[in-house]
């Protein structure tokens, strides 16, 4: 009897239930604080490779294929992904979709850069920059994160610009893509994460 009385008192009204759902959704939104580490790593790497490549072309130096560094960067990426996966007991729909976006991007990049440049010689930088824009734009849209949406659009604009520019400039445009599409949004995400950590303490 006591228990049913308690239940009746504690039972939420229709409006309270809706408020509870809204609160849960907003909490879930707030708790999903992407740290932006991957974004910063890849952004700085692409920017670095682009700049080194420019030095190579401009000063006629040969440092080897600097873009191979991107393969090395996969190691921390895989390490952090596994570590994060182990520490979590759930995966949100958003994260699943994000993973698929990256799978799609990686496969498309592999096919475009490897096959096209291997079998059909020519400059494929505009196509690479166009592909850079895809995950940036979609993930930006999914997280409602404007710097990434603009970053994606920036990559597409750069891919069009690169059609009219020399190879030397193309690598600088590639560096700019890394900077604006991934490094800067990554830094913003990281700062937001740090702020939210301070707020929770």
């Amino acid at each position, binding site marked *: 009897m006591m228990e049913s009385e308690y239940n009746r008192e504690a039972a939420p009204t229709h409006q309270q*239930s809706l408020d*509870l759902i809204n609160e849960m959704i907003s909490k879930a939104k707030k708790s999903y604080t992407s740290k932006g580490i991957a974004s910063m790593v890849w952004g700085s790497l692409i920017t670095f490779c682009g700049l080194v490549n420019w030095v190579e072309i401009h000063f006629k130096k040969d440092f080897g294929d600097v873009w191979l560094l991107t393969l090395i960067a996969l190691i921390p990426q895989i390490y952090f992904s596994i570590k994060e996966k182990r520490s979590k007991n759930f995966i949100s729909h958003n994260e699943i979709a994000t993973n698929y976006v990256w799978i799609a991007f990686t496969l498309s990049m592999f*096919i475009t850069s490897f096959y096209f440049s291997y079998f059909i010689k020519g400059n494929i930088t505009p*196509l690479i920059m166009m*592909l850079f824009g895809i995950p940036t*734009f*979609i993930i930006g*849209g999914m997280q409602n994160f404007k710097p990434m949406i603009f970053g994606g659009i920036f990559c597409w604009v750069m891919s*069009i610009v690169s059609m009219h520019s020399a190879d030397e400039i193309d690598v600088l445009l590639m560096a700019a893509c890394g900077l604006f599409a991934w490094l800067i949004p990554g830094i913003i995400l990281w700062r937001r994460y740090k702020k939210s950590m301070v707020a929770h303490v």
Partner: protein
Amino acid sequence: MEDVFDEKQSLELIAGMINKAKNKFTESGTLYLVWGIAVLVCSIAHFILWHFFHYKQAHYVWFFTWLVYIYQAIFLAKKKKNQKVRTYTDEILGYVWICFIFCFFVMIFILLYNRKFDLIYSAILVLYAIPTFLSGAILKVKSLLIGGICCWVLACISVFISVEFHLLLISTAVLLAWIIPGINLRNKYLAQTKPAHNL
């Protein structure tokens, strides 16, 4: 008092909302079918005119797709009008398809500008794969997911075969990536709406 919800009812309400959202995922597949059939017809017509009749302006058949664009615009405007709730999935898919359309035109422009005609169909296959694969992942429709992977495989195959036959790869791609999943989606959609019609 009648507005008071107990825990079970609240959970049922949440489950109901999720189910409603789930039903929204099961789209009719109309656009997949329309685009799939349009591209299939155009690519086969292009191939026949080019390969068998040596008609130089065979690529004009692709102007037919403008009619599909008009149909799509009307279809989407109507859908938007009747749509009560825009789910998160709708939003993500919106970004995926905006991305595809934009990249498609940018890519065609880049390749035509650089006179890389040999690359066009292979690049189109790579691009077809992206939204198809992602739609499959987001909507949890395996046939779309497999269709996307098929497009990537066909893009790799395209490197080893003559450009002339790339159009047939495009036909195969739309059949596997859009028409078959489109039929699947349509069947699911009809099966889902059937009880409602019977009521």
